[in-house]
C-alpha cells in the first residue's frame, strides 16, 4: 500500500513539475545564471505552503517531523559538490527521470552518472564516516533550536518570518521580471 502511495504521489508531483516547466535544463541553468527564477518560484511556493501545512499537522498530532541531522562538514561540503555537478547536469535526482519522461534524452547520461556517483560514494563512505561526517555534528537541530526559541511558539515565529521574507523575495523577482 505504501508503495502505491509512493507511485501516486510521484505521478502527481511529476505532472506539476512538467506543466510548470521546472524540469527543463534551460530553466534550471537559467536560475543558476540568475536570468530565469521559475524553479525558485516553484520551490519557494512549495516550501512555504508545505511549511505551514506540515507544522499544522504536527500541532494537531496528525504527523511527525523527520529531521536530518546538521553535520556541517557533510551538509556544506556535500551541498557545494552537489551544486557543482548540478550546474553541469542541469537536472537534479528527482527531475532527471522526469526530464527523460518528457523526451530529454540527455538526462539518461546524467542518470547513468548518478548511479556511478552513488556507487562511488558507497566505496568512499567508510573513510568519510570518521572524517568529514564528524565535522560540526550538531544532531537533529531546527532553526528555532539554534535561535534559542521555545519549540512550540518559536516555530511559528520563524515560520511567519520565513513566509514574509519569501513573499518579499518573490515580489522582487516579479518586479525585476526574472
Amino acid at each position, binding site marked *: 500500500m505504501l508503495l502505491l502511495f509512493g507511485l501516486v504521489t510521484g505521478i502527481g508531483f511529476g505532472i506539476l513539475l512538467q506543466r510548470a516547466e521546472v524540469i527543463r535544463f534551460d530553466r534550471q541553468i537559467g536560475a543558476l545564471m540568475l536570468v*530565469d527564477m521559475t524553479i525558485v518560484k516553484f520551490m519557494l511556493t512549495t516550501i512555504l505552503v508545505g511549511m505551514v501545512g506540515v507544522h499544522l499537522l504536527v500541532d494537531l498530532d496528525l504527523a511527525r517531523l*523527520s529531521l536530518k541531522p546538521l553535520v556541517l562538514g557533510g551538509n556544506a561540503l556535500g551541498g557545494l559538490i552537489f551544486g557543482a555537478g548540478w550546474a553541469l547536469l542541469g537536472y537534479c535526482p528527482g527531475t532527471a527521470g*522526469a526530464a527523460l519522461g518528457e523526451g530529454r534524452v540527455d538526462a539518461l547520461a546524467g*542518470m547513468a552518472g548518478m548511479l556511478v556517483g552513488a556507487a562511488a560514494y558507497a566505496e568512499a563512505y567508510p573513510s568519510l564516516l570518521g572524517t568529514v561526517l564528524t565535522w560540526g555534528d550538531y544532531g537533529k537541530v531546527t532553526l528555532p533550536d539554534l535561535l534559542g526559541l521555545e519549540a512550540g511558539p518559536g516555530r511559528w515565529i520563524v515560520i511567519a518570518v520565513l513566509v514574509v521574507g519569501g513573499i518579499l523575495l518573490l515580489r522582487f523577482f516579479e518586479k525585476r521580471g526574472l
Partner: protein
Amino acid sequence: MRATRPSRAWSPYVAGALAGLLLVLSVYVSGKYFGASTTYVRAAGFIESAADAGRVAQMAYFAKETPKIDWQWMFVAGIALGSLAASLASGTFRIQAVPRRFAARFGERAGLRALLAFIGGAVAMFGARLADGCPSGHGLSGTLQLAASGYVALIGFFLGGLVVARLVYGRIRS
C-alpha cells in the same frame, strides 16, 4: 488546429502551491516526505548485487541504505511517469539531446552534452549523498520542517551551482 499546439506552462506559483499541498497530504497519509537521491543508492546497490552480491552485503553504506524497492523508489519512478503523461497530454513531449542553453554555449554537440551530463550526474550524486539529501530531501522537505541541515545544504547547492554555471556557461546571453 489549435489543439495540436503545445499548451502553455502553468504558473510556478499555482503548481508550486499544489506541490506543497501534495507534500502535506503525503505526510498525512503515508508519513513520507519528498526525497529522491537515496533511490539512486538503492538502484546502484541492485546493479552491483547482480555482479557481486557478497561484496555488496558487506559494504557499510549498502547496509545503511539496503537495495530494495521502497516508497521513495516508487515516488521517483512516479515522477518520471507523471512527466511522460503530462508532456504527451499537453503536446510538450519532445525528443531532444541538446538543450537550448547548452547549444548556445557549445553548439549542437550531443556527445559533449552526454559526457558533461554524465560527469555532472556523478559529481552531483556524490555530493548529494555526502550532504545527506538533494533539492527534494533537503531543499524542500528539510527547509519546510525548519531543519538547520536543510538550509545549510540548500545554500550549498545554489552557491556551488552559481559558481560552476558562471564558469561553464558564462558567455550565454539571455
